[in-house]
């Protein structure tokens, strides 16, 4: 096949993929997913299933290493949060619960501040494993991401109720979603949002 012009390329490409057609019910499926997602956002507070993993991080406040001047990076899966030099990595004082479905968690602390990051297992909105977002949690835009800000003390089931949390929706394979949850104590919600917007990257 030879391509002599842009139009010829356009026609040839379209001819090759002309049998790739979308399902008639695609729009309806998307709307149903959206409605489930909205219900999820509105569901009452109290069943945030992140508690177990956060409990594992709670002890980090006292378990610190030697402070270093260089920025500290928290890595979870392909996501990296870079923190200023006054933070230092903290070793988990106890392992994240094996029963927890959540992936690796990491943390850093300085001057009583603690920042933690974790990634939930992939889930479809409204299904088992879909962590609820407390009612009234404000939606925020963090860099290119869509997130909810859960103020500290919002849910009594979170052991570290002083922690503010940003729950950032990330896409996962097969149309699923993962929540990247970044918690902080000793930082205001606005400071946490700004910190994450500036310093969160994915590779």
């Amino acid at each position, binding site marked *: *096949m*030879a*391509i002599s012009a*842009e139009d010829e*390329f*356009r026609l*040839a*490409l*379209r001819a*090759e*993929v002309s049998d*790739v*057609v*979308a*399902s008639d019910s*695609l*729009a*309806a*499926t*998307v*709307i149903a*997913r*959206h409605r489930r*997602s909205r219900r999820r956002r509105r569901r009452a507070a109290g069943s945030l299933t992140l508690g177990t993993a956060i409990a594992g991080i709670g002890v980090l406040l006292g378990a610190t290493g030697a402070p270093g001047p260089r920025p500290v990076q928290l890595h979870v*899966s*392909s996501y990296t949060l870079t923190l200023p030099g006054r933070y230092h990595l903290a070793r988990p004082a106890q392992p994240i619960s094996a029963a927890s479905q959540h992936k690796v968690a990491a943390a850093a602390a300085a001057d009583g501040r603690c920042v933690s990051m974790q990634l939930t297992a992939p889930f479809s909105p409204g299904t088992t494993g879909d962590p609820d977002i407390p009612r009234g949690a404000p939606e925020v835009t963090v860099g*290119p991401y*869509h997130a909810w800000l859960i103020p500290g003390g919002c849910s009594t089931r979170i052991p570290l109720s002083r922690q503010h949390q940003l729950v950032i929706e*990330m*896409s*996962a*394979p*097969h*149309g699923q979603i993962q929540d990247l949850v970044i918690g902080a104590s000793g930082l205001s919600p606005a400071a946490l949002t700004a910190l994450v917007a500036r310093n969160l990257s*994915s*590779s």
Partner: protein
Amino acid sequence: MSRSDEREEAFTLFAETASASLLRAAYVLLGTREEAEDAVQLTLLRTLRRWDRAKNAPAAYSRAVLVNICREHWRHGARHPEVTGLAADAGTLAVVTPFTDAVDRRRVLVGALRRLPVVQREVLVCRYLLDATVAETAAALSLPEGTVKSAASRGLGQLRGLLSADEKEARRGHQRRG
């Protein structure tokens, strides 16, 4: 009719118009029908969630979302490579069954597109499959317009080269068999 109903009706109209081209673009960018369908569903979901922002130019908005989702998918794939049984056996299947060969040949242009550098592939898909202008492509891909023009030109040039080489190779193979 409530505001939510109006929003869903407007979105449905858009989705019915745009989903085919989005799906084809995703198919070319990602490589499999299943991945493309997942990507388009997520693209439309994100577009609906932000409909108040997207409704003035939903095609442009969804283009940008789709590109980002494909990029996220590549990044995820690069970190979590999968070796499936089918991929491992693909060489054998290509020799044994003529159906695989026929399917491969039908997708000769798509196959050549996938061998291009990512930026050129994205630009060609946006320009020629999603009908985006140079400016719209630049916006969707977060690239300068000059880069879009040069990537399109170079991409088409490379495609010509790849297709010519494939054709010569096919002729040689045909002569050997004949």
